[in-house]
């Protein structure tokens, strides 16, 4: 009787333990972002490639999506270069801590403006003064995590999927104007895919970027950022936002 009682108690206990649901811990999206940011920040000289596809609805006056191949080279704290190639032409962006140069390789035009600041400063100053930023420059910021938190209204975990043959964590970044999916490699914690879906527009147009060829120990020297105007290239001006606003006050804005 006592043995049976003991066995019964033990059996109940084991059954109870077996039936109790053990929820697997879901990866922490915020922690993944932190790890990704830390890994990128720790890389002093790195490079990566990306293909970028933009829905035509986001491009004024175009019917076909703009596909570009981009190569980004970074040397912290203040050097960044990006080469972009698409059907529309080729462009090169280069900041060496003293100056910033932009080249329209196809039309053989270039412009150089003073820019004495870090990579973070370049991104902010370009955006403020000239209304644009270098392609995928957010990836090169010193604190990508902070930048995301400043812009995203929420971060959540979507699951895992494969991008470019790499198993990734899928993270959702909710924004006011667009929602973004950021895919981060499970094993290497590097950005692999980004999909930004713009809200409020018919068809929910998207901007997509696929990241590859990460090299976090790239052999980069100052020469990689030294700008030499292409032979025969014409030097032109880079219009500032202030100049544009002044023009808008006196002229009607048109779509061209």
């Amino acid at each position, binding site marked *: 009787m*006592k043995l049976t009682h*003991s*066995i019964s*108690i033990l059996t109940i206990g084991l059954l*109870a*333990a077996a039936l*109790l649901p*053990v*929820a697997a*811990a*879901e*990866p*922490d999206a*915020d922690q993944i972002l932190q790890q990704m940011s830390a890994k990128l920040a720790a890389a002093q000289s790195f490079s990566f490639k990306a293909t*970028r596809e933009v829905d035509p609805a*986001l*491009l*004024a*006056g*175009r019917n076909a999506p703009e596909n*570009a191949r*981009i190569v980004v080279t970074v040397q912290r704290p203040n050097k960044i270069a990006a080469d972009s190639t698409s059907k529309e032409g080729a*462009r090169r962006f280069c900041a060496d801590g003293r100056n910033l140069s932009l080249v*329209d390789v196809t039309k053989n*035009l270039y*412009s150089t403006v003073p820019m004495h600041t870090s990579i973070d400063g370049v991104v902010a100053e370009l955006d403020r003064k000239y*209304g*644009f*930023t*270098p*392609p995928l420059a957010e990836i090169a910021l010193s604190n990508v995590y902070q930048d995301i*938190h400043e*812009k*995203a*209204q*929420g*971060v*959540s*975990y979507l699951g895992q999927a494969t991008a470019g043959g790499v198993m990734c964590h899928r993270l959702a*970044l909710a*924004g*006011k*104007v*667009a929602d*973004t999916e950021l895919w981060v490699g499970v094993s290497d914690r590097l950005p692999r895919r*980004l999909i*930004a*879906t*713009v809200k409020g527009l018919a068809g929910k147009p998207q*901007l997509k970027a696929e990241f590859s060829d990460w090299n976090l120990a790239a052999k980069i020297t100052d020469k990689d950022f030294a700008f030499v105007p292409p032979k025969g290239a*014409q030097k*032109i001006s880079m*219009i500032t936002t202030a100049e*544009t606003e002044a*023009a808008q006050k006196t*002229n009607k*804005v*048109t*779509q*061209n």
Partner: protein
Amino acid sequence: MKSILLRIHQSSQGYFRKGIAVLLAATTLLLACNEAYGWVAAGGRGRGFAVAGRGYGCAGVGRYGAVGFRGGLPAGYYGAIPGAYRAVVYGGYNCYYSGGVYYRPAFYQGNTVYVVVQ
């Protein structure tokens, strides 16, 4: 199997009450762990933060490499020279002349545009 159970029974004889307490403690721990896992699971999915800002996507769309023009082009700015043109020097600038109008190339939001020279 029977001998193992018998040994369990024999060892628990003097410790029956203690055994119950241990079992209850273990069950409680399991429940607590599951709640913790549940919290992590719920937190991982529902965890968020309210940050007022431009929005990553908003900044992202316009920021991802000078694609298109934010807010369109101001009057007098053209993405391409309308019609046939020829290169000339006008007003101190290397310009293009087309249809009675002089256009000066410039970078605007990272893209090449042609600005009417007044």
